[in-house]
């Protein structure tokens, strides 16, 4: 164990005397964290849309007694887009053309009147810049979603109003038409009146038989009015979505991006350091001198894994510290972060030593590390349904035999409580063991 300590001290001293490497190790997580942080703080997931609303600000939609605010009101739009208010159609068009806004919405003067009249459709104009198909699709989907939400809001209000009329016909009551109050008897009270009238008539009366027909019709009409009310409610939202996560992550996009950045930084720093420091022992010809007595091959590999794991832990904690200025983190889970990052670091370290043992020198080790690591990240991030079934299964299989995916799962679990932590930790430990064995076999040929 003392040998490991001396080797660790030696490697840290060499690291400190390599200013470029040290600068990269410190600057890398800080720069990545700042980039992610600034990206989050800009709220890039909401496109900027210029809105020219020709409806006067004090003119609001009212259906019956329901006050619904403005057409395409602030809430419907601002949930989905960043609203940029403009004062003319030309200005709206200019904003789109100059790239200040991804699209523009022109809301016509008669939008409120048409929405209230229930007799015509209001036509909203959408101006888009289709120079980028991806952006164009994004705008189409976002605006279509906002308009659908507005239509749903208005149709619910209309249905609520119509339901009130149905209830009036069913239960009776007072209705105001053009300032005059009228009393509506209602089917239930008609039923009660007809049943009372029937009881007053002789049993064999012809009028009594006719009243029976009226009573039956009234009963049938009441039942159908109840059904009609339920049908109208259903018609306001024929399909309702109930989301249930059966696999994958439930963390918000920004948090997932932070976890992803942490896992990627940890991987690059740890794997590069482990593979590079092992390759350096060969480059300095020190390997044979070390393993002939003072340190066993396994001990030397263990030291490299530990060095890389600890360095990865420090670097990613530094990164998390910077990220905490932008993303809300649960500091009471800090002990779980430490466990997840340390175990992930050890697994990446073992993977790095295996790469370093395969490579002939330090530069080949670095090249090999970067060549292997990028595809691993892509494999781990391929979502289901976008590639063929067999290819998706292949990416999952590849991701399972390398530490990146379980490290990402462990970070998500430790930082956000997304899923159990134990599973990814055991997975990482198993991979650490497997790669350590592979590295030990590979260094047998070292002399």
């Amino acid at each position, binding site marked *: 164990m003392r040998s490991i300590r001396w080797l660790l001290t*030696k490697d840290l001293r060499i690291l400190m005397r390599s200013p470029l490497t040290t600068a990269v190790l410190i600057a890398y997580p800080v720069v990545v964290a700042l980039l992610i942080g600034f990206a989050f703080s800009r709220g890039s997931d909401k496109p900027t849309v210029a809105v020219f609303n020709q409806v006067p600000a004090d003119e609001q939609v009212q259906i019956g007694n329901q006050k619904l605010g403005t057409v395409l009101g602030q809430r419907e739009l601002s949930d989905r887009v960043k609203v940029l208010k403009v004062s003319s159609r030309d200005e709206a068009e200019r904003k789109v053309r100059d790239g200040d806004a991804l699209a523009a919405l022109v809301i016509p003067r008669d939008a409120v009147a048409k929405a209230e009249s229930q007799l015509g459709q209001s036509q909203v104009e959408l101006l888009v810049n289709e120079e980028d198909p991806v952006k164009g699709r994004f705008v189409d989907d976002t605006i279509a979603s906002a308009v659908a939400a507005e239509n749903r809001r208005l149709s619910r209000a209309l249905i609520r109003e119509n339901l009130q009329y149905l209830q009036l016909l069913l239960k009776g009551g007072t209705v105001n038409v053009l300032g005059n109050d009228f009393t509506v008897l209602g089917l239930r009270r008609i039923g009660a009146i007809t049943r009372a009238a029937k009881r007053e008539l002789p049993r064999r009366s012809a009028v009594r038989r006719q009243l029976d027909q009226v009573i039956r019709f009234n009963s049938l009409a009441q039942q159908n009015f109840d059904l009609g009310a339920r049908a109208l409610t259903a018609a306001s939202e024929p399909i309702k979505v109930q989301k249930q996560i059966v696999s994958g992550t439930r963390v918000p996009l920004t948090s997932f991006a932070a976890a992803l950045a942490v896992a990627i930084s940890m991987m690059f720093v740890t794997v590069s350091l482990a593979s590079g420091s092992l390759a350096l022992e060969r480059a300095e*010809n020190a390997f*044979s001198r070390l393993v002939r007595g*003072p340190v066993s091959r396994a001990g030397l590999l263990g030291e490299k894994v530990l060095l890389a794991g600890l360095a990865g832990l420090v670097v990613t904690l530094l990164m998390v510290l910077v990220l905490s200025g932008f993303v809300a983190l649960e500091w009471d889970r800090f002990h779980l972060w430490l466990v997840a990052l340390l175990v992930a670091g050890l697994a990446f370290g073992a993977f790095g030593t295996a790469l370093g043992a395969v490579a002939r020198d330090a530069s080949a080790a670095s090249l090999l590390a970067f060549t292997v690591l990028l595809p691993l990240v892509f494999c781990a991030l391929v979502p289901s349904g976008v590639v063929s079934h067999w290819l998706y299964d292949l990416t999952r299989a590849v991701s399972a035999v390398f530490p990146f995916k379980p490290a990402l799962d462990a970070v998500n679990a430790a930082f956000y409580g997304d899923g159990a932590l134990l599973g990814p930790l055991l997975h990482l430990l198993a991979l650490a063991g497997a790669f350590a064995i592979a590295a030990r076999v590979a260094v047998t040929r070292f002399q």
Partner: protein
Amino acid sequence: MRTDGPPLLQAVELRKSYGGREALRGVSFEAREGELVACIGPNGAGKTTLLTILANIQAPDSGTLSAAGTMGWVPQQPALYGKLTVSENLRLFARLDRVEDVEEAVARMLAQSGLEDRADEQVARLSGGNRQRVNVAIGLLGAPAVLLLDEPSTALDPRQRERLWEFIGALATQGTTVVYSTHVVSEAERHASRVLVLADGERLFWGTPAELEETVSSDGDFEGAFVAFLRQRGH
């Protein structure tokens, strides 16, 4: 140079193969206290394989190896950390070798290698000759009974080579047994008490340089005799 007394190092019938290729074919030899043994032979003869087996870097497939006392190892290329200073390198390997008094050993090696004034200089800034002196000094940190050197004079200029051999000769005089490989045949003649000639992993000769010269009738120098000997033995 001594060739009497009990052997400090004894190798018997050492064999080693890599895949289907035999690198050592039953090589035997011995070295006594204070003796300088040179291992010479053409490229690929098995010199480095033999020395790495003696140094316990790799195990033989068969054969026995016995050594009375510790063995120091000096690889062909300086095995040093360029970013560490001379004294930091010495201190690191002294600690790893579990030398009892680390600071005393470092001071002794700095004095013995004549590098006291360069102790705080990074190894990467030293000349090839000085680097090799540090390389040898590390091999001597544990005051080994036997010192194994793999082509120690490679990449040194004649003056540096001369100083290195003075250093090694002084060690032998103090009782350290030295086994070294070299492709500079004259270094075997000048410094070794006995030579081990290897070719294709096979021991072709074991004896003094004079005895080697006697086995062939050559009018030239030792190198000429060596070449004639190899030719005579089909190499």
